[in-house]
């Protein structure tokens, strides 16, 4: 995978989380993954289509997800209920949307799919490998961003 494809997701992740959750956000160590198994209790999957395509997965613990939902809603959320799930899914949507906006500035005009939530750890997600994972450390806990994107070859014209 082209490492340049992950940078927009890191930039967008840091900025969007700062804006809607608050606090500082620090980037952790980038690592390569050869197959994608969910590493956290809650995973938000967003598809990317266009000249760059694949999937982006946002993984977080249920505690972190509940804290982030509380921050987004401005209320103390105790349960990880339907509204909290929607809030955290929207976080994945916002980061992905802002990231593909940055990708478009590099000439890759892409679309995203509505976010899908996967609950549970060690669930395999079929996608292109290898992928890159970067953790973001927020005031609510760690958010793992896994980016599995590849450029679509241009059609050969006669």
């Amino acid at each position, binding site marked *: 995978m082209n490492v340049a494809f992950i940078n927009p997701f890191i930039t967008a992740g840091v900025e969007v989380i700062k804006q809607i959750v608050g606090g500082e956000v620090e980037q952790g160590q980038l690592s390569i993954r050869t197959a994608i198994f969910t590493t956290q209790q809650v995973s938000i999957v967003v598809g990317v289509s266009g000249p760059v395509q694949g999937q982006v997965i946002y993984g977080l613990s249920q505690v972190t997800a509940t804290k982030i939902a509380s921050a*987004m809603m401005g209320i103390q959320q105790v349960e990880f209920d339907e509204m909290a799930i929607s809030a955290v899914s929207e976080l994945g949507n916002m980061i992905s*949307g802002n990231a593909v906006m940055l990708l478009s500035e590099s000439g890759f005009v892409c679309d995203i799919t509505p976010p899908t939530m996967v609950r549970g750890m060690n669930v395999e997600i079929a996608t292109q490998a290898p992928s890159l994972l970067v953790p973001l450390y927020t005031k609510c806990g760690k958010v793992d961003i896994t980016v599995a994107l590849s450029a679509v070859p241009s059609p050969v014209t006669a």
Partner: protein
Amino acid sequence: MAKILIADDAMFMRASIKKILTEGGHEVVGEAEDGQDAVEKYAVLAPDLVMLDITMPRMDGLAALAAIVNANASAKVIMCSALGQEQKVKEAIGTGARDYVVKPFTPQKLLDAVNRALAMP
């Protein structure tokens, strides 16, 4: 006070936008969960303004915008999406959207866009 229809597949966003609009003095007359739902509710509710997400299942917001504007050329629609690339904004404005708000947004930014659109003829 304007009658507003909100279309977004995320329950959280519908609730957030509704709170902002209600506190801004407007009345949310309906909520839609996808583009098709928005087109159908627009026909029934005849709102003064529609807040329309783009990335939605069944029918996306740009297709819904085209259908709403086709049914009523003077419809006031504001796109409200996480997708802010120039191509999407141009397509939406070219199809007839009055404004385009990129998520995440502040309450004031949303209300400013709504009030600007409502002031248009």
